[in-house]
């Protein structure tokens, strides 16, 4: 009986640890180009990231807030980029890796398969790729925090 309780406890602890690790992804991050900030949230068991800040929020051609003008779906081209969900459907696979998700590049209007790897607690390696990971491009994102006032 004691052995069963011990095994069950170890199992529960490892599950809790796994879930805690998974949530390390939640937060506000800055992509390598520094032109945006992306907030990653957990919704149900998956992770999603949306643009929450743009260095240049308005389109220089129109003076209006930037919209997703390169989206292949014409009905989406008026959707504001701020608030736009560019990371979708990531699942935690353990060892600091989130997979099964996609990343959207608003500059090209393209969606890529994506894998996120946590390099350290404040750094992410984001790799967008086509089909196999070889055909892709990586970027480094850094964690942001609220300034102390």
């Amino acid at each position, binding site marked *: 009986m004691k052995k069963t309780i011990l095994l069950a406890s170890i199992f529960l602890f490892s599950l809790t640890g796994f879930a805690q690790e998974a949530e390390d992804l939640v937060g506000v991050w800055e992509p390598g180009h520094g032109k945006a900030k992306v907030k990653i949230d957990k919704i149900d068991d998956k992770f999603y990231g949306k643009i929450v800040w743009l260095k240049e929020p308005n389109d220089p051609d129109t003076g209006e807030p930037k919209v997703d003008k390169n989206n292949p779906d014409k009905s989406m081209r008026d959707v504001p980029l701020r608030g736009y*969900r560019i990371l979708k459907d990531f699942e935690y696979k353990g060892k600091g890796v989130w997979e099964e998700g996609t990343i959207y590049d608003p500059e090209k209007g393209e969606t890529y398969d994506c894998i996120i790897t946590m390099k350290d607690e404040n750094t992410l390696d984001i790799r967008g790729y086509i089909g196999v990971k*070889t055909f892709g491009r990586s*970027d480094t994102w850094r964690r942001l925090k609220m300034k102390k006032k």
Partner: protein
Amino acid sequence: MKQTYLTYFLSAFLFIGFFTLQAQEDEEEDWDMYDDFELEDDTPVKRYAAPTVSGMSPQRFISVSFDAQMPYNYEFSEVRFPQSNGTGFDVDESNPGVRESGTADFTGGLRINTNIPIISKSSFVWQSGINFMDTRYSISPDADFGENRFTLPNGNEARGLGQILNEDGLRNINWTNTFFFPMNETEFIVFQGQVDMSGNYALDSFQPLNTLRYSAAAVYGRRVSDYFRWGIGVSRTYRVGNMNYVPVIMYDWTSKNRKWGTEILFPARAYVRYNFNKNSLLLAGFDLEGQSYHIDEYSINGNSYEIRRGEVRPKIEFQTKLTGYVWASIQAGYRWDWSYDADELDGSNDFFRGFFGNQEFGMINSLENPFYFNVGLNFVSP
């Protein structure tokens, strides 16, 4: 009945899930608060120049194309052996006696290019690729010259060059590695190294490894903005047929409305670009193509006999997205003969003649300049 309950249960579950997701999405967001976010780890972050600029034609990971030249006439000189016999054609001799002439009814073949990212990080990119170019000839020799077999200095019988091209064709396989080193957000250095095996070999019997030819280029560049970068450098190249050292100029620019641009890596290529939209574009400009092709039959006494094929190709190229990351390309242009002369290389070691050297040629050949076409399918980069 059980099935009905199950259906209700699943519907309710999905509805609640959907409602929860929507509710989370619709939360009022105070966007201004994100102005006050700063780096958690404020170690100065190093940013790097991206390896491209906006609006450029998509980079090709894998490309398969077919190239075809329209019929043209050729004239080949006698085959001489400056190393084996000590007699060749003077470097300024432009119109030697014609030993062979005829029409190349077809010149062309399959081209397969790969350029695979091995390492692709913002701080360093290494791409590597194997490329294959098959050039087949269908030759109709002029009757005046009859059969062009002749005796080599070592006493062996050899076929005329027209017959060799007709029966064997020319092949090139190369391995190219490109390294992109951004130093900061603006400056970058590109190194490219290439090793080529070119000749009339068959795919089941390669030629000696001492006929491998090496090219390299180094460019220092500045990515001034998302729309413009320039660079200067030097290269050791076979694009004019002979081995040569030439300066390199990079000039990639895109207009602010992303319609117009240039893609220049002179002297290898230079294009003006017009983007119809983000899925199709037109390039107008030229390519410079060339290799030094080992002709096995003429390579005697340990020397390598090589056709120095160099051609300028003014062209128009249309590229369009077919689906996903598969693009089609169609080129039409003019194949202008820069060089089809030949050298006998002492011990297979190449030499530098450049534009001013006076080493004698083994053959001096001329080709008329036909139109050419190229159609291809490309698997392109994200």
